[in-house]
């Protein structure tokens, strides 16, 4: 049995009946209306509890929670720079490890060391620090809050921006369809580090998200959760449909939910009847300029990615047909 499976042997998940009432990240922060990124962070912290130390990358979630002299943080929190949250949290972890071993502090309960960053702070400028921290095997959780662009600086493209999306540095025009590259598969890059636990999640499925974060906190060694964090401001849609947009991302297989436990890929939602990608795209003005042809291209790509994922999860029957049973999820 791998280290993660061993640690999760007796895992009891959250249900609608036992969602913790604590709010380690308190209300009164300054995130935009309808921000799913702050919701992701809130749920993650509810799942982890208060015995945590948090390191934040620069980005929306740092700015909106910490304008001195106010703070939305009821748990210890540190922000240092944009690209180094993973390095900072590995330093906190190393410090605690050394001090506990040397008897300088008395650790009664396991502290969860949590680092987080946006897609920019994780997939682009912070990828090196993340890779280093994963490879070194620190006991920490890293959460990527993926809102598919550099929102804090005004919606510039990142390597996690999906193909065709309009951002301020991937504007559509006579010679541009918007973002001209496909979204970087960051979870797969993390999986390649062979860490005990990797998962994808979105606050549209809050129990799934909380359970994954909880598992990430329970496994020894590095754990990573990649959270699709809808951003109405950057994605250009009404704030009241943010959760529907996130649900649609899952329903269309644009953002599949899965776990990789000790290297074993497990689909969280099998989605036997995926909706057309177009339904997801048309909800958001960042894709408004896309032609039918481009949408078909995106659909083909999503299909191929889904097939590849099914393969990794062992969900393909011989002959290529999908298994049909549906996991009872929430």
């Amino acid at each position, binding site marked *: 049995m791998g280290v993660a499976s061993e640690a999760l042997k007796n895992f009891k998940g959250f249900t609608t009946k036992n969602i913790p009432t604590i709010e380690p990240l308190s209300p009164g922060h300054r995130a935009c209306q309808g921000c799913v990124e702050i919701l992701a962070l809130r749920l993650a912290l509810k799942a982890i509890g*208060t*015995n*945590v*130390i948090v*390191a*934040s990358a620069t980005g929306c979630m*740092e*700015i909106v929670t*910490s*304008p*001195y*002299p106010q*703070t939305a*943080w*009821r*748990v*210890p*929190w*540190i*922000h*240092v*720079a944009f*690209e*180094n949250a993973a*390095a*900072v*949290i*590995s*330093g*906190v*972890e*190393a*410090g*605690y*490890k*050394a*001090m506990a*071993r*040397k008897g*300088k*502090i008395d650790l009664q309960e396991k*502290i969860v060391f949590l680092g987080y960053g946006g897609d920019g702070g994780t997939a682009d400028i912070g990828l*090196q*620090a993340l*890779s*280093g*921290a994963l*490879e*070194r095997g620190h006991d920490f959780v890293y959460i990527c809050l993926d809102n598919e662009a550099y929102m804090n600086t005004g919606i510039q493209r990142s390597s996690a921006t999906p193909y065709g999306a309009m951002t301020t540095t991937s504007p559509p025009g006579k010679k541009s369809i918007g973002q001209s590259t496909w979204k970087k598969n960051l979870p797969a890059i993390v999986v390649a580090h062979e860490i005990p636990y990797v998962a994808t999640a979105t606050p549209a499925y809050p129990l799934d998200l909380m359970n994954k974060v909880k598992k990430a906190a329970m496994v020894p060694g590095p754990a990573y959760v990649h959270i699709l964090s809808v951003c109405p401001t950057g994605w250009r849609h009404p704030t009241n449909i943010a959760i529907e947009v996130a649900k649609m991302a899952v329903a269309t297989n644009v953002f599949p939910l899965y776990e990789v436990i000790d290297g074993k890929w497990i689909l969280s939602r099998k989605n036997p009847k995926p909706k057309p990608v177009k339904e997801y795209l048309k909800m958001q003005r960042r894709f408004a300029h896309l032609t039918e042809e481009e949408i078909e291209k995106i659909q083909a790509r999503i299909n191929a990615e889904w097939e590849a994922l099914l393969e990794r999860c062992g969900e393909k029957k011989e002959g290529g047909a999908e298994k049909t049973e549906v996991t009872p999820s929430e």
Partner: protein
Amino acid sequence: MGKRVGMEVSIAAAEAVALIDVDVVAAYPITPQTHIVEHLSELVANGHLDAEFVPVESEHSAMSVCVGAAAAGARTFTSTSSQGYALMVEICYIASSMRLPIVMAVVNRALSAPISIWNDHSDMMLARDTGWIQTVAENGQEVVDLLIHAYRVAEDHRVLLPVMVNLDGFIVSHVIEPIELPSKEEVQKYLPPYKPLLKLDPKSPVTMGPVGVPEIYTEVKKAQDEAIKNSKKVILEAWEEFAKHFGRVYKPVETYRCEDAEIVILLMGSIAETAMRAIDTMRERGKRVGLARLRLFRPFPVEELVSVLKPVKAVAVIDRALGFNGYTGPLCAEVKTVLFNHALTPYVWNYIAGLGGRDVTVENFVEMVEMLEERAARKEPMGYEIINVRE
């Protein structure tokens, strides 16, 4: 008191860090710093030092790990040189602004391009505005002593600033010198355990590194500026205590044969030893020349410099880096500010010497002083020149 043993200075530096009993070492290899961190990882590997050695993937992460560990309340150490320093500089500013008592040995090396592994002070000068306390060693014993001193200063609650101990690459770091290492007990008597003022602790949560809105940013910076100004007192106090504990006396500006000097050579680092030999030669010829070597670079030792330079007619300021401003080297600019502020008007010529490992010889110093005298006599407008340039 231990006895003097011949050892490589880098090894001695690592041994000193072990005596200091740091909790976390995070480092990335770069010549000429390598021997320090190699030896530290060896000390950790064989159990002589109980610390987490974090073999980071870059210097940027080395400093970030130190920041995280120091914020958690751990005693931390790192070391780098040149390009490595340049890569971590973003986080160096943050470390001092967050008032974290990290100590770093910078084994001074030239900055690229062209890439050069050899010694000069470009990295130290890149660090000059980062808000770190900076000391500069001349030899191996001083490296050891300044490292021990650094923690006492950094962790003092009246200071809480990171300290950078500079030593010249190869010329100091790689030579074997007779060095006296104190015992662990002696170090512990001098250096109390680190008690953080604030730390990341779930039992009493704090928010560190928040957004500084315009209403507060200036006040934070003012507080930081006060901290580095006030650190001077603690630096001196810690050296006084050091003398009591270990018998070696240190001060911000070291002088040599300055008593009746008309001309002073002012510099930092190991070329002081060559300069002293040149001064002996010149003194034999009846020239009243002395040496002022800055051991403390940040905060800038203004009072000490004023008292050394007040009676002097001419000063040769030796910079080991360029400022690329077209009129002066970086050290000389600061020396001139001190002189101007105190209405002192010696003739000052600025020599840029020893870039990227170029030797600076006894003859060079003699010549620099002769040229200084000639220029002063001619009343040539004060300026700078790079010496030893091949035609």
